[in-house]
Every structure is written in structure tokens, then in C-alpha cells.
């Protein structure tokens, strides 16, 4: 297993959709005039520009930056949900992603049923999931709720199950947006231990974190995104955090 991720001069433009319609009359005129195109303004928006970095196995990358800086976009580019407008992304290794708690879960189905959906989406086979089902349930530790539809879960329960599905079957590349969101102390401790384990399995771990304590604790590399560019990529986590805090001080 040689997981690696390479960003070569990656830029990504998003189509920003702004509602410019103001009423039924305008909509109708617009519909006829624009031949069925909707009354929204589609604008190119540069989310990420000229991103270059390389990660190899054993790397634990923390992405920091302000809201809207492009952190989640970068995760989506790595996962392959978005494709770069320019440049190239080369990834090797199976990606297990947790872009959002509960993503890929059907709220009407039970936790147990959702293990299969999320797992299959992440690229595991039914056979692998069958073998790991009990282990996933055990780590999630949500008791009887495993057979209750997910819509009755608390935020934390959803987080536990998602995290467990993403991390139980040896991920080669683990991507997590908002580390430990919604988890209680017990869960954070368990998850911390699990991340320690993954660390030693020499895979790649990437997370967005707004908690600088974790940023210092878990990672060996950091990317600071500022104004839609990578302002810093490297191992000097402490200095980067200082800079990030300084850039955003309210006074």
C-alpha cells in the first residue's frame, strides 16, 4: 500500500448561481427570451488557485483557513467529487471520506442498513462489509439505536456511526471535514485513539480543523488557505497557526 496524493498547479472555478429573478412576469419573459434557461446568474468564481502540494504515506495533513476559503472544496477535489478546472490531481490508494456527518445515509433507514449504503459508496464490497459489520457497530457504541431509523438519532450518534464506518475498514486515505463535530468526550477520546492507530498504519489522513489544539496534536503537515490560495504548505504547524490567528484577530 503506497498511498499518495499530488496536486500539480490545481485551480478550480465554481459556477456561482445568484438568483436575479424578481417575479412571475420577469420569469415568464426570461423563460421565453432565454429559451428555457433559468433566471439565475451563473458566474465563474475562483475557489482555489494554483495549488501545489504532495502527500505521501504517513502524512497527516491539517487544513486551516477562514470560512469560505476553499477548505471543503479542496477535500472534494481530493475525493474526486469535483474535477480541477486546471492542473492535475494524482491520487493513489482507496479514499474513505467523511465530508459531512451523515453524508450518504438515508434518514429513513436504520443505522445497520446505512452501514451498507455508506460502505458501498466508499467502495467496499458487500462481503467486506458483512465481515466488519459487528466491529463497526461495536465502535460506534450506540446500543439499540443501531436498528432504529437514522432520523431519530442525535447529532452525536450520527457522528459516531459515520466515523466508525469511515475508519473501521483500513482506510488508505482518510478524509474528514470538521474533526469530531458533535461528539461527546467519550467519543472524542475513542476517535483520538483510533486516529493514533491509523497514524501508525502509514496511510494518509487529511482533516479540516477549527480546533487549534487538535491541529497541533495530530498532524505533521499543514495547509493554510488564505484568499483562495495556499498560503503555506509544510511542517511548521506552530508558526502557521500563529499566522492564522494573527491574520484573523478581531482588533
Amino acid at each position, binding site marked *: 500500500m503506497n498511498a499518495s496524493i499530488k496536486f500539480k498547479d490545481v485551480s478550480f472555478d*465554481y*459556477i456561482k448561481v445568484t438568483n436575479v429573478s424578481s417575479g412571475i412576469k420577469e420569469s415568464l419573459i426570461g*423563460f421565453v427570451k432565454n429559451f*428555457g*434557461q*433559468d433566471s439565475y446568474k451563473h458566474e465563474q468564481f475562483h475557489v482555489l488557485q494554483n495549488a501545489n502540494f504532495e502527500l505521501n504515506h504517513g502524512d497527516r495533513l491539517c487544513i486551516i483557513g477562514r470560512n469560505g476559503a476553499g477548505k471543503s472544496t479542496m477535500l*472534494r477535489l481530493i*475525493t*474526486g*467529487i*469535483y*474535477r480541477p478546472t486546471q492542473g492535475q490531481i494524482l491520487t493513489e490508494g482507496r*479514499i474513505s*471520506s467523511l*465530508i*459531512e456527518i451523515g*453524508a*450518504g445515509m*438515508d434518514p*429513513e*433507514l436504520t443505522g445497520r*442498513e446505512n452501514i*451498507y*449504503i455508506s460502505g*458501498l*459508496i*466508499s*467502495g*467496499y*464490497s*458487500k462481503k467486506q462489509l458483512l465481515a466488519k459489520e459487528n466491529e463497526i457497530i461495536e465502535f460506534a457504541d450506540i446500543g439499540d439505536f443501531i436498528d432504529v431509523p437514522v432520523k431519530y438519532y442525535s447529532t452525536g450518534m450520527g457522528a459516531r456511526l459515520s466515523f466508525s464506518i469511515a475508519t473501521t475498514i483500513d482506510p488508505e486515505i482518510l478524509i474528514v471535514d470538521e474533526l469530531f463535530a458533535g461528539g461527546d468526550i467519550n467519543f472524542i477520546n475513542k476517535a483520538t485513539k483510533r486516529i493514533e492507530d491509523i497514524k501508525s498504519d502509514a496511510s494518509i489522513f487529511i482533516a479540516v480543523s477549527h480546533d487549534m489544539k487538535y491541529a497541533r496534536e495530530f498532524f505533521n503537515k499543514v495547509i493554510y488557505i488564505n484568499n483562495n490560495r495556499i498560503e503555506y504548505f509544510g511542517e511548521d504547524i506552530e508558526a502557521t497557526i500563529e499566522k492564522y490567528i494573527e491574520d484573523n484577530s478581531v482588533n
Partner: protein
Amino acid sequence: MHNLTKQNIELISTLTANHLKIKYKRTSLGFLWSLLNPLLSVGVISLVFSVIMGMPYGEFVVMFFPAFMAWTMFSGSVLGATTSIINNEALIKKTPINIMIFPIVNVAINFVEFILTFFAFLLIAILIGYEPGINLLYLPVSIILLLAISMGVALIVSVISTYFRDMAYLISVLLQLWFYLSPVLYPKDFILGRMPIVDLLMTLNPMVYFIALFRDPITYDKGLTFELLGLSVAMSVVMLIVGNAVFNKYRHKLVYRL
């Protein structure tokens, strides 16, 4: 569709099964509604239209149900396709999933319901005195062709209605019009020879052929003619290829249109 992996296919079957499970949850009859719903629809519609058409009830049912089932499978797949991608925005934006799965799951759901009700009907018809002929052996071919054209059209519609959101509503109205223009409530012969324009429509409407694929063996105990088979195979294959090509051209752009 050649680029579907084994996991993709497992996911399609899981999502299809789940959907059917959820659809009638908390009803006491549960999945049985999948059977009862079309059965009762056919019963009620036949009650009214057998009188209008001046046909005996049983005769009307045997004329109506094969066409109605085929039509429901096709129109259900197309209508479902209009929202198949938009409704799964959350999944598409948050997981690296093969987007083609969603229109396919939608067709699969319609297909499973079609197969179940179709054979339930056949069984009931036989129980109340319908005599099955040897030509029913053509049905597997008819079913595969219907599935292929539904899939092809669904793939195209799913892309178009993600780009143009008005299409979902437009298509649902067009399908209603198409229903009355197709020989579902009436036999084809009933309407032929009245107006040249109607005759032309009966030749150009692709659904006429796909309805014949079912009505000929079931209602008329007739084999599928070479002409009918040739035309419907050609249409299904072309739609499937075009649907695939259109979808593959836009598959990576769809996520930005959500």
C-alpha cells in the same frame, strides 16, 4: 454503463431494495401495496372505460392491462428520472459516487414493480378464465426491450432536467398527452382509419410498438412479427447508446449544476 463496477451494481441493488422497503413503511399492507395499487387502478379504469368503449369488462381488462403495465413502466422511469439526480444532491456533493447510479436505481425500482404486478395480473387473469397461449413465450423479449428503451430515455431525461429545471414539470404534462396518444385505453385498430393525422401519429409514436410487444402475445395470442421486433430492437438499442453517450458527456459537469 460499461464503467459500472461490482460495487456500483451492489449499491444499485441495495438502494433499489431500500427504496421499495421505505416506500410503504408504516402501512399495514406494506409492500403488498406495490401489487394492489396497479391492480386496483386497472380495476377502476376498466370499470369506466369498458362502458365507454362498449366492451365486456373481462375483455377490456385483457386488452388494457398489458398496455397499461408497459406504459406505467416507461412513463414511471422517465418521470422519476427528471428528479433522480436533483433529489440526491446531498449524496452527490458529499461522496465520490458514480452519478449514473441514480437514474439507474430509478429505472430499477420501476422495473421491479412492473415485473411483480405484471405477473400478478397474468396470474389473476388466468384464474378468472383467461387462456394463456404459446405466444406468451415472447414476453421475456418484450420485457428486455421495454427495459432498454426506458433506461435510454431515462438517462437523457435525467441530464436534461438537471440542467433545465422547468423540464420536470413540462415532461410530466407531455407524458399525460403521450398517454392519450398511445393505444393504452383503446386498441390500435379502434382509432386507425379515422383521420390521416391520427394514422400518421400511430406510425410515428414509438410507444405504439412497445405496447404491441405486450398486447400481441397476451391479448391477441399473436407472435411478434419480424417487422415489430426489428423496429423495437433498433429503437431500444439506439436510445440506450444515445442515453449512455449523453450521460457520459455530462456526468462530470452535473455536480456543478446542483
